[in-house]
């Protein structure tokens, strides 16, 4: 049972990573990151079946932090959108080399 959960978790994580790598829309990228976090949550939950309650507590913290990140992140994306009128990260190349 735990193995299946872990495989699923890692698949989700890879999926999230893959999403971050291929997508250009900042919001979608952020959603992919959220997917990664949820993969971690899944792993925590799975482990906590064997290891005790700590893992589930951790998940709550992760969710909270993810929410905070979402708030800040979206605010930043809005700020960028005001300057560039787009959220496509390919356009944000003022800073490079």
């Amino acid at each position, binding site marked *: 049972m735990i193995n299946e959960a872990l495989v699923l978790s890692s698949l989700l*994580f890879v999926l999230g990573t893959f999403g971050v790598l291929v997508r250009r829309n900042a919001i979608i990228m952020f959603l992919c990151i959220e997917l990664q976090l949820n993969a971690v949550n899944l792993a925590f939950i799975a482990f906590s079946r064997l290891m005790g309650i700590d893992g589930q507590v951790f998940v709550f913290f992760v969710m909270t932090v993810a929410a905070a990140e979402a708030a800040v992140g979206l605010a930043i994306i809005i700020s960028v959108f005001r300057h560039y009128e787009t959220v496509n990260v390919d356009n944000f190349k003022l800073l490079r080399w």
Partner: protein
Amino acid sequence: MTIDFSRQLHYVWALLPEIILCVSGMVILVVGVSGRYRHAHMAAGGSIESKSGDDLGWLALLGLLGAAMANAWLYSVTEVGESSMIAVDRFRLFSNWIFLLAAVLGILISFAYVYRQRLQAGEFYALILFATAGMMFMVGARDLIVVFLGLEVMSIAVYTLTAFNRRDRKSAEGGLKYFLLGAFSTGFLLYGIALVYGATGSTNVAVIGEAISNGEASMGLLSPAVALLTIGFAFKVSAIPFHMWTPDVYEGAPAPVTAWMSAAVKAAAFVAFLRVFMVGFDAIYALWYPILWWLAAITMVGANLIALVQTNIKRMLAYSSIAHTGYLLVAIAAANETAAAGMLFYLLVYTLMNMGAFAIVMSVSHHSEERLYIDDYVGFGWSQPLLGVFLTVFLLSLAGFPGTGGFMGKIYLLLGAAESDLWILSVILVLTTVVSYWYYLRVAWVMWMKDPETEGQHNRIIVPFPMRFALLASVGLILYVGIFPSAALEFARTSIEGLGTFGGGLIGQGP
């Protein structure tokens, strides 16, 4: 006083500096949004004479003073009972000093910038305090949950600060990049924590360490876990190849934020990195040592080489800061007490010299984001001799020249490396230092040796009182530590006591 973590209330005492910072941050927020400040700020229209935001800055400094007093007070407490989520050891307290110092310097140099750029002073200072609190959580954590929480508290505040200058395109872009990549790397860190938890059944660093050394941990989970944790921390300390955000963010962020975060964020990440790896994963040193060896080597070489071709001084200092990450990674790869103490000492000195250098960059750019190219420094030394000498001292210290704190720091790191027989890494360190001389000295030669085509372009540089104070303090401390390092070295050395027993460092060999 003794602290017994079995009594929940005692957590308040153990976390007193962090709590003071959070509270004062909130107070500043509240005061900042009150009509008076908002109104005064807007009315002044950001002219340089306006001092409206200064009050909030002083308030933040007051909060930092309170935290500092609490931090000093914590030296007198002793910890009893079970090992808890929060450490009350000198290691943490020393690190706290670094963050407090960085925050104080950061705020002192921000005053002029904040009103020149019409930033919301309240939020700005409050976020610095929050981030500082997050750093303190991070280094005081004995539990990976707390590490994660501290990291996020710090990071979220810093993301915001990076993008703080809403009028500046670069600031927003930098903030976005930082945010996306930061969150992305946090995923790796978290996954690592989860796997550690799965392997050892605990998130408490001490317990993890015991479990591993008792052979109770599942190695199949532990090795990817260590790798993922390394990735997470390497991102925060900006080791190559996880450094890509650093130059962009440092260039984009408001200058005082760059100054402050380049020192403080790095310090926090390094201290937590050290604690987790040396206390938690001491027994599997052989597993992570080669990774860190290569990370250190690649970081030192790569960063110094790229820094050579930079023309923007902020970006150059960003790569220089990555290079310093490389030097500090040597300490983690060495993983012995000398190296740990050396790292603490180096972080302290690094905070002083790096922030000092940025402070002068800010004054040359008139507290804005202009005139940041190295070529803009032509004739700077001769029209502003004192600032020129200061910048030279900062650069020499960054380069690790005798007579400055940077030299003592580098020697300390090398001594640490020597104890673990990391000779090749030491040689790489000194060779890349030679490379770094070139770009540090380039600034020196541009400002002292080149004859300016137009006179007087540096005549209008203004150094307000707080920044003057910060500069004098930094230069004074750097020189003091460079010439009479004994007290500081001793302080750093004793701060390592009680962190844990390290045996891992002694088995080190070339990869």
